[in-house]
């Protein structure tokens, strides 16, 4: 029997393995994955299509990762039920796996709203996994017209990944702006213009009413012909195992500050779970790779018996399209401070005397200094905010404080 079992094989699962191994060097770990692949980085699938990485380089850990960490891995198996009382997992091949401590890191599944005629479209895919990327690649050539439903992070990274390999890309979204989850209206307009200049077409505030094999009829009456269809409307946390076991769920699996679910000995991490967002003081799904890794790491330490808290989560994103970079973090609440200049769009959101969020499009250099202000909830009246809002810099901290920061390792 494995001491530790992890359902999943992506960032949260790897974080969990490394968290466990930072405490317990020997206790056996078993991973269960429904994919056939060595652990790979999901956000890299667009870079794969773009040719900026390849199958080998997109591995999230080296080939000897499982062996070195004394892990067994069951490829191509799906966990269909979990029992906290019996400490048992049922697999789709009717085998069972026992555990002492379990991490559920089942990620998310694409959300496809019911749309008339979708079944008649042969060349369609989501854009979440390596097999989706491979499927899309097989659909397209230089003469292809591609319709992407969804102008969020996934849809637009997909557009970037294939733009130079196809003839035309049209992106349709129900929202009135692109990247609605990370950008405000003005910022979104700036990025949209950039993408349009590169050749991506947008139809916003509209949605698909009906599909035929190679065409979409939109609610507005517009018709968009396509050779391949990408469904990137949204994702839903994959919560079914915990839900069916009567664990607490909301949008995602509810976890405490130890990344534990409401069920005994069962933890959850990554896109299937909720984290406490310190910038909005709400529990929410933060479907981001760095968050998944950190949750998994903390869960792993707790599973191995070293009490560790996960208490500094927040939404954050670094993303770029055709050379235009943007970094966003936190919540867009409170007073808005515009620090934009000709080159760079920059907005800060300040509440209760602390930075709660920011949006930067353009020169994003050293933006992590802003992130640290949010993470540590640094009172802005203790720093030179006028200085730092122009450019992220440690000089804005008082002398003793910046000494403490840069020379922490020597104290």
């Amino acid at each position: 029997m494995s001491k530790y079992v992890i359902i999943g094989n992506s960032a949260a699962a790897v974080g969990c393995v490394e968290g466990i191994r930072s405490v317990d060097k020997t206790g056996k770990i078993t991973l269960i994955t429904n994919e056939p692949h060595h652990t790979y980085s999901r956000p890299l699938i667009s870079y794969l299509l773009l040719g900026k990485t390849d199958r080998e380089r997109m591995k999230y850990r080296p080939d000897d990762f499982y062996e070195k960490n004394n892990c067994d891995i069951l490829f191509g198996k799906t966990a269909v039920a979990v029992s906290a009382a019996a400490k048992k997992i049922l697999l789709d091949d009717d085998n069972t796996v026992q555990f002492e401590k379990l991490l559920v890191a089942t990620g998310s599944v694409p959300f496809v709203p019911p749309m008339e005629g979708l079944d008649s479209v042969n060349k369609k895919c989501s854009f979440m996994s390596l097999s989706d990327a491979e499927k899309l690649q097989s659909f397209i050539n230089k003469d292809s017209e591609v319709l992407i439903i969804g102008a969020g992070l996934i849809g637009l990274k997909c557009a970037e990944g294939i733009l130079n390999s196809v003839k035309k890309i049209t992106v349709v979204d129900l929202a009135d702006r692109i990247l609605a989850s990370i950008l405000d209206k003005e910022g979104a307009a700036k990025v949209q213009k950039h993408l349009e200049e590169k050749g991506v077409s947008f139809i916003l505030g509209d949605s698909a009413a009906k599909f035929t094999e190679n065409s979409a009829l939109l609610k507005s009456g517009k018709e968009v012909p396509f050779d391949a269809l990408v469904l990137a409307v949204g994702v839903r946390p994959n919560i079914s195992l915990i839900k069916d076991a009567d664990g607490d769920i909301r949008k995602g699996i509810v976890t405490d500050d130890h990344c534990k679910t409401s069920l005994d000995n069962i933890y959850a991490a990554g896109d299937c779970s909720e984290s406490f967002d310190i910038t909005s003081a709400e529990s929410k799904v933060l479907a981001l790779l760095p968050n998944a890794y950190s949750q998994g790491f903390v869960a792993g330490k707790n599973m191995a018996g070293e009490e560790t808290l996960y208490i500094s989560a927040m939404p954050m994103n670094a993303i770029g399209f055709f050379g235009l970079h943007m970094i966003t973090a936190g919540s867009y609440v409170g007073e808005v401070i515009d620090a934009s200049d000709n080159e760079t769009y920059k907005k800060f959101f300040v509440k209760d005397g602390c930075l709660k969020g920011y949006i930067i499009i353009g020169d994003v250099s050293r933006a992590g200094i802003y992130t640290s202000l949010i993470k540590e909830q640094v009172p802005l009246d203790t720093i030179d905010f006028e200085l730092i809002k122009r450019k992220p810099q440690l000089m804005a901290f008082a002398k003793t404080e910046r000494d403490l920061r840069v020379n922490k390792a020597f104290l």
Partner: protein
Amino acid sequence: MKKIKVNEKWCLACHLCEYYCAFANSGKGDMVKALQNRKIFPRITVEENDKISLAVPCRHCDDAPCVKACISSALSVDSDGLVQINKDKCVSCFTCVLVCPYGALSPGEDGVMQKCELCQTNGQQEPACVAGCPNRAIEYKEAAE
């Protein structure tokens, strides 16, 4: 492990550390040929205004947020605690820039992220910035942690 200690009060804002860093990582044998009339891409940043100046290199954090956040596992920490980047794996997503509280990662001339590796990976004996600092405003010393 040895790290770079920052002695702010001795910093002259001469930016020589930035030039020595760029040279040490240029792969060239001649400083003039490596740097003359070129934009330099140092891995250490001198912050300055009319009153203050200090050099900020990577701190090689114990619990390095850049390593944890890297989406392509290009960043790693070795058994000595040296935080390194495998430029071959980096896709320039800037997630490390989003999470580094020191602003210590930046794109190099090739657009791929780069960072201070304490001159342990470029054939130098000790950090070139430290060796080139005329006023000991940065020192290479055994860290407490």
